[in-house]
């Protein structure tokens, strides 16, 4: 199995010896015992590195004896899966067997390691701080935007509420019987109005368009010998109106002798009645309602 753990510890020991040589220079050059101790640790570390390197070379020699194997698309999946299973089980057993090696624990080594750890920690924390700060800013902006939106929505709701209450006052509760009563009253009113109109019309016609009885001159009396009883203008109009509404497709009324001719002339001249286009003896009421 590739000794992956060899490479990092060799890297770390190199770093430690570099740091230690820096520390060595700051030491008092007169105290030889300290220098010896430091050099001893350095030598120890270098010795360990050399041993690890030798182990790696042995492993490398073993590895070079293993043959190569290339894959084709068809057998790639299965053979790789088998290889990966073997690799993972081997790694697992290696982890379970192995006890972690500790670097020699003297003060210098610990101090250097500690400094390294703290520097890494500081760097990571700074990164975390800047990320969180920028996230914070964004959240503040989002909050402001959402707050604005909320205010607008609330304003809209208030105005809608006002509108709603106004409309509610206008709405009258629906009740069938009340509508029925309303319609009945309307109908009654209309009927009353109609009656009033007819009465007024009758009175008006009586006042201003009476039947000729005593007022006609004696001369004309012989010419106007009417066999039938003359009917009032009111009655003529009634006949015309009834005919118009009873038989709308043929609203013509034959001019009978009971119609006083001057009144017929009056109606025709004022556009209240119309002659039949083909038959001069028939008249109809003008359709004022259409």
């Amino acid at each position: 199995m590739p000794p992956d753990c060899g490479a990092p510890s060799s890297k770390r020991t190199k770093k430690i010896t570099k740091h230690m040589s820096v520390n060595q220079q700051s030491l008092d050059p007169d105290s030889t015992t300290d220098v010896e101790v430091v050099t001893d640790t350095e030598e120890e570390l270098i010795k360990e590195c050399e041993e690890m390197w030798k182990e790696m070379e042995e492993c490398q020699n073993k590895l070079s004896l293993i043959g190569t194997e290339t894959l084709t698309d068809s057998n790639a999946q299965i053979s790789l899966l088998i290889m990966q299973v073997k690799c993972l089980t081997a790694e697992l057993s290696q982890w379970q067997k192995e006890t972690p090696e500790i670097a020699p624990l003297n003060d210098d080594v610990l101090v250097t390691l500690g400094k390294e750890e703290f520097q890494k920690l500081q760097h990571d924390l700074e990164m975390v701080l800047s990320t969180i700060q920028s996230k914070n800013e964004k959240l503040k902006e989002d909050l402001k935007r959402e707050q604005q939106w909320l205010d607008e929505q609330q304003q809209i709701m208030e105005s809608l509420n006002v509108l709603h209450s106004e409309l509610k006052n206008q709405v009258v509760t629906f009740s069938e019987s009340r509508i029925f009563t309303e319609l009945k009253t309307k109908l009654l009113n209309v009927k009353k109005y109609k009656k009033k109109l007819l009465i007024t019309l009758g009175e008006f016609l009586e006042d201003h368009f009476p039947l000729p009885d005593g007022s006609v001159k004696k001369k004309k009396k012989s010419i106007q010998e009417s066999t039938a009883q003359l009917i009032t203008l009111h009655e003529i109009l009634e006949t015309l109106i009834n005919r118009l509404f009873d038989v709308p497709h043929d609203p013509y009324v034959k001019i009978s002798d009971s119609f006083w001719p001057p009144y017929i002339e009056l109606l025709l001249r004022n556009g209240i009645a119309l002659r039949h286009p083909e038959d001069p003896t028939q008249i109809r009421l003008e359709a004022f309602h259409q």
Partner: protein
Amino acid sequence: MSVLRPLDKLPGLNTATVLLVGADDALLQRLADSMLKTDCASELRVHLARSLPLPSNVNRPRVDLLVFVINLHSKYSLQSVEKSLHHVDASFFLGKACFLATGAGRENLCSVHRNTIVRLARTYRSPVLFCDLEVEGSRAAMAQRLARMLQISAGHVPGVSAMSLLSLLRSSESPSLEDL
């Protein structure tokens, strides 16, 4: 014809080497520059190749991570990668190889469907990464990711081996009908 092997030489001290294989030289060059710009604790070395097998007369360090770069806009890059796959030792696919597909964003220029790459990666049980190497931001982020993966597969990160990274990168997908 030599086959590329993962552990054929002793590693250099504190160095990690990545080999980018792809048909598009410009993209590879840009990715290599971005990777060298990332600040990393180990010394990074980036080698570029258009296809495998590599010429055997050059003395090069051992390759810790193999990245196959496929441009979704050209079928030729997919074909050249597929041909190169046959010259790679099987033990590379235990976490030391990955596929990188670029250009998935511009659908109208894609002549290779992203599912083809996904299926290819699934056949070789390796992770597939998507990015747009033409865009500066995406390229920088991908370069950082690759640098981290490289550190792990070179063994510079204690406690995480290439194989464990592979298990962690496995996307939880239900097996397709063809796999069943």
